């Protein structure tokens, strides 16, 4: 597992969410520079995608696709493209750094006024989200830059060794 701990990541995510995001706006250069356990990171250490010339999508981004299109789809629509009551994330992610993204997901967002009743809940206690927050970010980042189109990626990198065990462990359910 190359020292890659899913639980540790989720913990870090929660810790970051607790702090006020002070990073510069926007996600920065998505260029992947480092890989750990199937997940790629940019020069600032933020999760990013790595899509090969033949269209093969890295494992982390692929997992992000799977997890996004289950939980997040209910409001934000398929492939992050928005619904009648939640924003298009392929647009929104162009303005969000990783820390801001985590703060929003873990803390939730409320926009309740005379014109609209838009509420995103806090997902801080939802392991299905927080165990895969970097993957979901990486997927949406790929969608927001246009590097990844709609639908299920046609090809993806293989399941890295130990991924299933780590996932189940983080989720707290028996394999």
């Amino acid at each position, binding site marked *: 597992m190359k020292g890659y701990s899913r639980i540790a990541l989720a913990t870090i995510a929660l810790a970051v969410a607790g702090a006020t995001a002070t990073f510069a706006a926007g996600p920065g250069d998505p260029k992947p520079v480092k890989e750990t356990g199937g997940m790629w990171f940019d020069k600032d250490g933020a999760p990013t995608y790595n899509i090969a010339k033949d269209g093969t999508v890295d494992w982390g981004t692929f997992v992000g*696709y*799977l*997890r996004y*299109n*289950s*939980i997040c*789809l*209910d*409001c934000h*629509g*398929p*492939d992050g*493209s*928005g*619904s*009648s*009551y939640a924003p*298009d994330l392929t647009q929104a992610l162009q303005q969000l750094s990783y820390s801001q993204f985590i703060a929003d997901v873990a803390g*939730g967002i*409320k926009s*309740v006024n005379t*014109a*609209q*009743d*838009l*509420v*995103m*809940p806090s*997902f801080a*206690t*939802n*392991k*299905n989200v927080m*165990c895969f927050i970097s993957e979901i970010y990486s997927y949406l980042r790929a969608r927001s830059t246009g590097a990844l*189109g*709609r*639908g*299920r990626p046609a090809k993806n990198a293989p399941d890295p060794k130990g991924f299933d065990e780590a*996932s*189940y462990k983080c*989720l*707290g*359910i028996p394999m």
Partner: protein
Amino acid sequence: MKVRVQATMAEVPDASMAEPVKRFRLHDQLDIYRQNPNPKPGHSSKGGISMKSRGKWFAGAALGAFGCLLLAAPAARAQNSTSSPALEQAAANPDNWAIPALNYGSTRYSTLNQITTDNASQIEPAWTFSTGVLRGHEGQPLVIGNVMYLVTPFPNTVFALDLSNDGRIMWQYTPTQNPDVIPVMCCDTVNRGVAYGDGKIVLHQADNTVVALDAQTGKVDWSTPLASYKDGATGTGAPLVIGNKVFVGVSGGEFGVQGFLAALDMSDGHILWKAYSEGPDSQILFDPQTTMSLGKPVGADSSLKTWKGDEWKIGGGDTWGWLSYDPKLNLLYYGSGNPSTWNPNQRPGDNKWSMTIFARDPDTGMAKWVYQMTPHDQWDYDGVNEMILADLTINGQQVPALVHFDRNGLAYVLNRATGALLAVNKYDPAVNWTTGVDMNPSSPNYGRPTVVAQYAPGSHGVNVNYTGICPAALGSKDEQPASYDPQTGLFYVPTNHVCMDYEPYPVAYTAGQPYVGATLSMYPGPGGYMGRFIAFDPVTGKTAWQIDDQFSDWGGALTTAGGVVFYGTLKGYFRAVDAKTGKILYSFKTPSGIIGNVMTYMHDGKQYVAVLSGVGGWAGIGLAAGLTDPHAGLGAVGGYAALKDYTTLGGQLTVFALPGS
């Protein structure tokens, strides 16, 4: 005969608005009333108005606004609320629409016949009303006498509109609800309508509080919290009033909420009984000996035996759909929804009694019979769609039938007295997850669908992408109700013609958080369109005619004695169609997509037809950006236009009538 009509943009007719007809005769009384809505003496502690003050007040108002209630409501009070003749009387008058589905049998067939196949092309908008709320508007208004009652999506504002005065707002009620309930509603903040009974309007709020309002004043009579939205339980369904009880279900199948149906006392709102969909017999109100399934007693622990460990406690089976009632048999009918989670591998067993049709005694809650349509669901085919009670002729014999168009794409015909299975047919030929239901009573699989492994996401474990499953999780039909026309003997069904890929994987449960466990990709069914409005015979399985639409048909149907069937489309078209031929007689583009159900009423001797517009709901998911077909060639990906190119948000009622006063 099979007529296929491809609807196009060219159908938009000239929409010249009728000059509004002004009526002022009630203004004086209403103004007096609004200044002093609780005239003394005699304001009762229950929030009602005493007989004495009512008499005085109604003496002035009897001309119009509350004429019907004057006749009906005091009669109910006089009987000390032990029965609800007010509702029975109101529902018996064909001018009214007093029950969410028009009648207890949920036929949505009106005997009003001013609008006919000959003149339907001449109808025009008579008046309109903006609800002031943007999100998805499902359901339908009620009309009792001169008053129309309607409820909006969250914040669930209830309006009482004066039909004698161009829909002037007589009162409105906006509950105070924590906005944290909004994201707990899986599929938009819809509400499918209020119910009427005993002089009260009953509202099932999003936060799962049931509230009774005085129908004349909007004042809260009682308020009962049912279950906490903090655990994912929400309210979206229309209640049903029977006698001195009101029945409500619960939403939350995507949050692991253990579904139940609750009976509340109409006089004070206290909970009489709760019957869960899963759990021990004492919770599901089953008698092992007398509760029957397909002609046999269910036996002890019929639910517990079909779940692993305590999974049933977070097992879903929510009851967010429609309720029906047969007064002669004294049986209440409804369905339960999907078992939680969407990953079938995590919940081995039949997961009873999710996906089930229930027939219960409304007085005790005890189940008389049950039938599970989709054992061990692997597709999210909730069984909550309406149960239409119709007396059908099958093999030359008149049968008290229950007809149900399920999400799973099968149309079921059962004997509603016994729960015997009479006929099961696909109502969309695209349905491929099953080859049909075993109809042989001596077979060990009697009543079970034969599942096609290729299209069953539990068949080869998790992390496998099962492709080309029809229908999609939306179902061949979702909550949008069908209508039964006894004149043609056909059922008119708005459907979704959508397929999907389904990839299950393990998920963890956290109270109040989504508990889904599958990635879905949905796309138009064969033919490249997503909606079919069909005239269907569930006994023979034959489709008399169909109208195809680019997007799902998510608006409920209305049939009428004038031979005209009405419904609305996601693009926002309100349509009048010849029930016999499927010919579109009239079409009008309302301001927003229609996911509401068409209703009709008579006022001052004139027939009106009304529908709520306001796109949203599950139907609005994915349609903001359009759906793509991952299995069509590269060129076709993204080729399906988005609904947002046709319509946008906004709740509005549009009421149609023939021209002239």
